[in-house]
């Protein structure tokens, strides 16, 4: 130890060289220096460990992309780019195309956002601005609890409650009044794209609303008072003073929700109908990228079949990245000029 201290701090050596003459010198200084060098060593170890943690993430992403691209090579050679733009999915004749899955994933997720965003923001506004104090905590807690329910349970609930409800009441009503749009027509199976969108919406409401609630709570009281003092009504105060200040954070929550919706597998697989088709009507069954992988992976017999499924996985990965980048660009354009801090 002493050696290392001297080595690390050459300035101390002349003192030590004086030797016996200064033997009475208090040992405080060398000891302090030794300690200093150990802490330097610890610092370096710490730095290295943290670097390793950071690199692990990069490595993981690399391994996933590597696996997806190599295992999908067979499908890419067989179909090329057409794989992503044709909707045949025919294991018997070994013809594969991912378009209907890409379509199913995007449409079900967008439908989910369409339903979930207004609902989630409404929940957040009610909790932060309108609810009586005693109801606030239980309500916030329950919303968060919704996020903790495993997706298979959502799937079961959807099969036993949501699907019959859609089949018997909602779909006939929609078909009667909005059937002319062509988006809601055909036989009301219950199961299908609409059911998938609704169950996804229910699953992402807690994510969006709890983030929206947090950023809205962080808006300083002075902002609310500033709007009120200008003669604003309560709604105007919420729009200008609260939502206006919290919009960057709310967009962040929406993107997180979208990410969850794109990748959600179990609940969607249970209610979407699992038929590789592109139909205009939301009543028709569909299929998503995540569902087809989960459903068919274990029984994919041929090598081309398996490779095509991996390629679908790659497509899901890419769609998720593209959507996130687009959403990020949207956030930047919407919140340009907004300071990073919400408290000013």
């Amino acid at each position: 130890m002493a050696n290392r201290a001297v080595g690390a701090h050459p300035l101390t050596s002349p003192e030590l060289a004086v030797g016996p003459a200064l033997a009475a010198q208090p040992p405080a200084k060398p000891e302090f220096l030794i300690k200093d060098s150990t802490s330097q060593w610890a610092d370096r170890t710490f730095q290295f460990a943290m670097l390793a943690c950071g690199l692990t993430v990069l490595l993981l992403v690399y391994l996933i992309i590597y696996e997806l691209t190599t295992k999908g090579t067979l499908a890419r050679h067989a179909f090329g780019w057409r794989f992503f733009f044709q909707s045949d999915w025919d294991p018997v004749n070994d013809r594969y195309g991912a378009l209907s899955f890409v379509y199913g994933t995007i449409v079900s997720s967008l439908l989910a956002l369409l339903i979930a965003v207004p609902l989630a923001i409404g929940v957040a506004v009610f909790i932060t601005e309108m609810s009586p104090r005693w109801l606030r905590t239980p309500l916030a807690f329950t919303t968060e609890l919704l996020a903790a329910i495993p997706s298979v349970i959502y799937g079961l609930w959807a099969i036993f409650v949501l699907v019959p409800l859609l089949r018997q009441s909602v779909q006939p009503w929609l078909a009667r009044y909005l059937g002319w749009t062509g988006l809601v027509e055909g036989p009301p199976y219950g199961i299908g794209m609409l059911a998938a969108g609704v169950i996804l919406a229910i699953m992402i409401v807690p994510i969006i609303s709890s983030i929206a609630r947090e950023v809205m709570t962080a808006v300083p009281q002075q902002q609310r008072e500033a709007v009120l003092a200008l003669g604003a009504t309560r709604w105007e105060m919420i729009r200008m003073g609260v939502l206006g200040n919290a919009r960057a954070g709310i967009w962040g929550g929406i993107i997180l929700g979208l990410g969850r919706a794109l990748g959600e597998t179990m609940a969607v697989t249970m209610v979407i109908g699992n038929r590789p088709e592109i139909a205009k009507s939301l009543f028709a069954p569909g299929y998503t990228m995540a569902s087809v992988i989960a459903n068919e992976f274990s029984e994919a017999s041929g090598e081309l079949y398996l490779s095509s499924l991996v390629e679908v996985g790659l497509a899901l990965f890419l769609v998720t990245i593209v959507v996130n980048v687009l959403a990020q660009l949207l956030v930047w354009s919407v919140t340009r000029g907004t300071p990073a801090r919400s408290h000013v």
Partner: protein
Amino acid sequence: MGVDIQVEHLNAWFGKTRAVQDITLKMSANHATAIIGPSGCGKSTFVRCINRMHETVPEARVSGQIRIGDLNVYNGTSATQVRRRIGMVFQKPNPFPTMSIYDNVAAGLKLNGFRDRRQLDEIVERSLTMAALWHEVKDALRKQSGASLSGGQQQRLCIARALAVEPQVLLMDEPCSALDPISTSKIEELIFQLKQRYTIVIVTHNMQQASRVAEYTGFFLLGNLIEFDKTEKIFTNPSDKRTEDYITGRFG
């Protein structure tokens, strides 16, 4: 033009605590009235009763009468109607950070459904000029956010925002306590000019400030109005012993 503010038997509560006790006074049009007193004496609460901001706090309650010109604040009028006639400037500058300087000033007008572009431009310029901020920000009206200004500029922006809706009364709740001396003197100068058009009520901790800007001064202590008189009289020859103790710095 400013109007008189007549307060009669005003009481204000937070839950069971009475923060303002039976206050009656008249603040004259086109003058500045300073409200002084130690922390927690109810001076902010008193001012917040004038534009009904007090009632936005949970469990807050008010009794008594306030008249602003011919408008009865607590009888037959909605809080939003009252607040549209009264501008308020807060202790901490609170511009809207997500809005440009222009939109900050225009915020109150837009709330009132005002959309005429040309007139909006005029009013924004006039308000910023009145708040002595126009020359500093006229090149960055739409580019810069309200929060990008310095503290003193932000406070003048808040004053411009309050003036844009052409109020009759301007309430200022310790408008300079978060500002440096130079910004403070700018705002005091501003108050001097604004008096010609508005009735101003200013809460302040700073007794020199009260004597500089206000013709009348009210001294509050523990929710009571101890003395209300011409500012000179309050600071040179107060009639109440407690006022004298406070202004000579014996407590508070």
